[in-house]
């Protein structure tokens, strides 16, 4: 079946692999995708995976509960390292989300057809990652129920307004816009498929739920025309949005005047790093997913190969960023800058710096080889390493700058506590919990878009030759 379509990792297989395996028609595509959420029996693997994920999610609730009862003192960040796990994890999660928007928006504008079968779950990944990211700054405030008037400009009885000249408030605007637009784009992209689910569902409950969610979509020519225009506009808007989000996140650092943070390279370097980390996460999810749900016909070796290439390209940009940071540390002739980069390379946190260089600049060089890109197990492990590497990058940026500042008398070390780790691992649980629910209840692949890949979806032109 699917395994015959693409080779078993032979070196030319992924280059020639199609975006959609041959032998499909409208009905087989619909059936392959729609039967997963409509299946009566929940696969045992799903139940076990969900239990694991939900267990970690409960740990998050416990960690946050403890934080709210006790205070932010249970976290390890303190003077001089006032920002630590909370911001590291915030930036890490937000970055992961970026690949989803890149796939669904930027690749749509570039008419990259391979995006179609992975865009739905990549966008889901974006939304869940942003949800995990939001937890950190919100709970770092210690009293998240008061965060409303610290963060949002609403007329309150105290007559207070947020400080609009602060990058942290810019971040609030960027991230909430990003979350809102991502959810809207995701939902709009799903409506025709929800109508398919409504029409195929047998049980009355599913029919009703999918029926309400599909809003009465009936696929008329007029509907589709406006729908396509709206999709294109949303893609066109999401593109500058996604670039701005990590730019603004980098402003949280770059607008300060600390050595190692105050750098003009930060915005592009952060955006490239975000896409790099995001594609690693898409691969981490896609490689087991396509096997578990037998979606190899839709997520082919071509997709895997393309994603590995994007990872390599953006990884190289990130490596360039490291090189520039080191170069300007030296070239600035500023003793504090020079000390910062030297401390980063040889100080007490040197292990984290060299691990990140080994992963993000060293390991990814193997992706130049076709054989590596066609080896799913190896690629899966590498994508996990990339996630670790990008986490370390944020750790290095945060901690090495803060722990030894201008006055040696105020130097210190940062040690995360068990609550830091529980919160971080807990958000992975939240992410996986949401993703398991998504897999069970939502068509994972955009059926209507994949249908358009078929030759029979094309209309012959007036002059008799197809296009």
């Amino acid at each position, binding site marked *: 079946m699917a395994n015959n379509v693409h080779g078993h990792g032979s070196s030319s297989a992924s280059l020639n692999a199609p975006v959609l395996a041959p032998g499909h028609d409208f009905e087989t595509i619909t059936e392959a995708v729609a039967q997963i959420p409509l299946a009566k029996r929940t696969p045992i693997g799903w139940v076990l995976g969900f239990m694991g994920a939900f267990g970690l999610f409960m740990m998050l609730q416990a960690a946050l509960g403890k934080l709210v009862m006790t205070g932010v003192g249970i976290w390890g960040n303190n003077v001089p390292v006032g920002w630590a796990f909370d911001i590291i994890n915030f930036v890490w999660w937000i970055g992961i989300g970026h690949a989803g928007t890149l796939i669904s928006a930027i690749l749509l504008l570039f008419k990259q057809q391979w995006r179609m079968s992975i865009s739905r779950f990549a966008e889901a990944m974006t939304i869940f990652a942003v949800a995990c990211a939001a937890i950190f700054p919100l709970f770092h405030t210690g009293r998240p129920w008061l965060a409303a008037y610290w963060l949002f400009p609403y007329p309150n009885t105290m007559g207070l307004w947020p400080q609009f000249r602060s990058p942290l408030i810019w971040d609030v605007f960027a991230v909430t816009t990003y979350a809102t637009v991502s959810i809207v784009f995701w939902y*709009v992209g799903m409506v025709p498929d929800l109508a398919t689910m409504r029409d*195929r569902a047998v049980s009355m409950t599913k029919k009703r739920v999918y029926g309400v969610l599909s809003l009465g979509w*009936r*696929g008329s*020519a007029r509907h589709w025309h406006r*729908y396509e225009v709206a999709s294109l506009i*949303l893609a066109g808007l999401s593109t*500058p*949005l996604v670039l701005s989000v990590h730019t603004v996140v980098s402003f949280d650092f770059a607008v300060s005047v600390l050595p190692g943070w105050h750098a003009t390279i930060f915005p592009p370097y952060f955006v490239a790093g975000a896409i790099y980390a995001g594609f690693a996460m898409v691969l981490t999810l896609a490689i087991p997913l396509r096997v578990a749900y037998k979606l190899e016909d839709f997520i082919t070796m071509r997709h895997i190969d393309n994603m590995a290439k994007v990872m390599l390209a953006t990884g190289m940009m990130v490596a360039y960023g490291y090189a520039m940071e080191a170069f300007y540390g030296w070239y600035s002739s500023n003793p504090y800058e020079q000390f910062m980069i030297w401390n980063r390379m040889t100080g007490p946190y040197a292990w984290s710096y060299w691990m990140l260089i080994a992963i993000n600049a060293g390991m990814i060089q193997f992706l130049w080889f076709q054989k590596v890109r066609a080896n799913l197990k190896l690629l899966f492990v590498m994508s996990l390493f990339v996630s670790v590497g990008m986490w370390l990058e944020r750790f290095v940026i945060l901690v090495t700058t803060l722990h030894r500042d201008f006055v040696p008398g105020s130097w210190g070390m940062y040690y995360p506590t068990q609550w830091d780790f529980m919160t971080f691992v807990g958000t992975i649980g939240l992410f996986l919990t949401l993703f398991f629910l998504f897999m069970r209840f939502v068509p994972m692949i955009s059926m209507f878009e994949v249908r358009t890949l078929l030759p029979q979806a094309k209309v012959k032109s007036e002059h008799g030759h197809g296009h």
Partner: protein
Amino acid sequence: MYGVMAEFDSVQALVDASKQAVTAGYTVMEAYSPIPIEELNDIIHKKRTKLSRFVLMGGLSGMAAGFTLQYWASVIEYPMNIGGRPYATWPAFVVPSYELTILFSALTAAIGMFALNGLPQPYHPVFNVERFSMASSDKFFLVIETTDPRFDHGATTRFLSDQGAKGVYDVAA
């Protein structure tokens, strides 16, 4: 009665039938398909949507709202003198204005698309035809509505059968 519905097997058959129906002088009709077919709107409706213009207006109002909010809060409502720096620090206001431009545009695009399409719509006559449930999987439908001046139950049914329809059904209102 709402109209007469013909079922087709392929994209090409639906497009050809729609062209024939327009040539035959029918004006009030609609085609339904499980995939977007660019040509159909041009054949049947001819008009392009006004959505883009609404989105432009949404975006401009988002930008204006964002900038006004910050200017008003930082300059008029609660000015804070910090070392004699100016109140109207417009470069700092760019980022939230930019984000609100995108937010308002995107919401206008999504809500506008649904509103122009008349969605959400809990009831529509085409769903009375049982076969129409295939319109979201692999079948293609053309409905000529009774409000069409040329509509004649017998003649229209015959016309649609002649276009190679796999089935022709009456659509109850």
